């Protein structure tokens, strides 16, 4: 029986009913990976260790919730003794001596990490075109980008190689590729999942999350990914609920906010039509719609492009060729070592963001840019606080359109930055948000975004599961058949 496109729930029941052994499942997974190398979804495979773990699971009963489930890990998470590149030449030979907390959490729950997925370099990009390891193909069409930065993870799930993958989301890097590849992706509340062992991009925005075919699978993964971690000073010490518990509850009478300032008139008419149909669908499930004003939301992208580069320029100063990672050949002196290592190790987009960051943090400009952006960030967060007094969730398209062709955004970086128009606000405010498939434009999938209040991932998953129980967009596959 083929394992392609199977959900976590399906695979768990196949394993429990002995329809397939753990080793067979992992061998099948690698057969799928090898048959789809043209997607370039993986940077490094973990075949020997994966088969070893599967063999062990076959010989000894294991009741862990994710026992034997193959999972692809974004190459931004440190994995002990397994190469971790973060999509960069800078880390092309970096072998971490420890694993990220979220990787340990998943592996302790029985997951088998089959490989590390391709991504935009240091998670800076929205199309996976900035990876040192080459572009990733979107399974929905030749030369289409999978989105980014978690493009390899999205492509691997969308093509049915693995039921789930990890991603990280600083400005939309889980939700935007989920939308473009027709899968489900959740960015939890800032602090829900430990950032320890995640290679930092913008520390006040970065958050890990699950990517899978269904909201239910995302809930199953989230249960294991979350933990309070004393090694991350921003890790939340809050009750972690069973995220699967309430997903079956109906949403009748619950309130959905539509953001007045999200101007949909500039979007493709097909995208707007699909969005309107989703509204009608939620109405048929008993939800009520309210128009909400978030007066400062139009400043989200400019705010982000001060805050994120500022934090990135600081975080990436650790790459100096001394303690780990790449080092240039034959440095003349210490300064030459720093400058040549960084110039050879980083790609153009990463350099661009470091330079912007250094500029907005430099003496004389700090107040005009960095401080001001942080003040606007508070205004945006205040707008959300007001909104959630009136509604349960906010709803918008995830992206401005479906997947685009590689190279089609030209050389103007701002065009690419606007790709994250709808996703960035949730990162600035630290709120949970997810993307679910809600239609197709020219046979290319597109997603619907739901933003929730602080710590209300369960409610988001409930809204998403109710939608998926009554629609089949998430069941369609790039190869044409329905699951």
């Amino acid at each position, binding site marked *: 029986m083929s394992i392609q496109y199977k959900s976590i729930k399906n695979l768990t029941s196949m394993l429990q009913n002995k329809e397939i052994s753990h080793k067979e499942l992992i061998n099948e997974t690698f057969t799928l990976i090898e048959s789809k190398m043209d997607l370039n979804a993986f940077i490094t495979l973990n075949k020997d260790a994966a088969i070893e773990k599967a063999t062990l699971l076959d010989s000894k009963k294991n009741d862990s919730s994710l026992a034997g489930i193959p999972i692809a890990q974004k190459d931004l998470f440190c994995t002990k003794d397994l190469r971790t590149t973060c999509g960069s030449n800078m880390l092309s030979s970096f072998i971490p001596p420890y694993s990220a907390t979220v990787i340990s959490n998943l592996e302790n729950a029985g997951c088998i990490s089959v490989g590390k997925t391709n991504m935009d370099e240091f998670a800076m990009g929205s199309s996976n075109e900035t990876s040192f390891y080459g572009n990733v193909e979107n399974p929905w069409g030749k030369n289409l980008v999978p989105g980014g930065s978690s493009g390899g993870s999205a492509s691997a799930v969308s093509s049915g190689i693995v039921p789930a993958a990890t991603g990280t989301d600083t400005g939309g890097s889980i939700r935007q590729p989920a939308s473009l590849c027709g899968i489900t992706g959740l960015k939890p509340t800032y602090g829900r999942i430990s950032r320890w062992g995640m290679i930092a991009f913008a520390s006040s925005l970065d958050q890990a999350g699950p990517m899978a075919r269904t909201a239910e699978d995302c809930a199953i993964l989230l249960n294991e990914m979350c933990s309070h971690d*004393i090694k991350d000073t921003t890790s939340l010490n809050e009750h972690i609920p069973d995220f699967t518990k309430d997903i079956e509850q109906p949403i009748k009478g619950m309130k959905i906010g539509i953001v007045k300032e999200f101007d949909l008139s500039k979007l493709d008419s097909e995208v707007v039509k699909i969005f309107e149909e989703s509204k009608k669908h939620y109405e048929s499930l008993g939800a009520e719609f309210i128009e909400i004003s978030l007066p400062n939301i139009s400043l989200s992208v400019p705010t982000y492009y001060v805050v994120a580069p500022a934090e990135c320029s600081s975080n990436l100063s650790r790459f100096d060729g001394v303690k780990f990672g790449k080092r240039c050949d034959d440095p003349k002196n210490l300064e030459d070592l720093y400058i040549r290592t960084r110039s050879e190790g980083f790609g153009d987009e990463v350099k661009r963001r470091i330079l912007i960051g250094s500029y907005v943090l430099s003496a004389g400009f700090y107040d005009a840019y960095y401080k001001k952006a942080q003040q606007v960030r508070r205004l945006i967060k205040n707008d959300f606080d007001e909104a959630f007094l009136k509604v349960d969730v906010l709803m918008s398209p995830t992206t401005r359109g479906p997947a685009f062709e590689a190279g089609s955004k030209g050389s103007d970086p701002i065009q690419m930055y606007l790709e994250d128009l709808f996703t960035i606000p949730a990162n600035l405010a630290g709120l949970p948000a997810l993307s679910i498939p809600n239609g197709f434009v020219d046979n290319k999938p597109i997603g619907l975004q739901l933003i929730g209040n602080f710590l209300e991932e369960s409610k988001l998953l409930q809204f998403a599961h109710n939608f998926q129980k009554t629609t089949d967009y998430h069941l369609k596959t790039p190869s044409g058949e329905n699951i």
Partner: protein
Amino acid sequence: MDKKTVTTIAYLSRIALDEGNEDKITTDLENIIKFVDQLDNANVDGIEPLTNPLEKKAQTREDKVTAENRKDTFLDRAPKSNEDYFLVPRVVE
């Protein structure tokens, strides 16, 4: 934003600009800064900066050794080291 400013921030960032590409980088950075200048439209009088969405004090923990000593592992994986130190080009003659 001009070429001189870009050269200064590149040096502060310890990044060398590709020769022949400096004009393109200057234009890109100029456009990005113009784009973020939209922030001037916001009235932020009296607004406290938001540095972190949690607005909680960073958690601290007791200062005690929890990890085993893995000096050799870290030195082994460094680009250049001897048995005790990370090595860099000589800074003091």
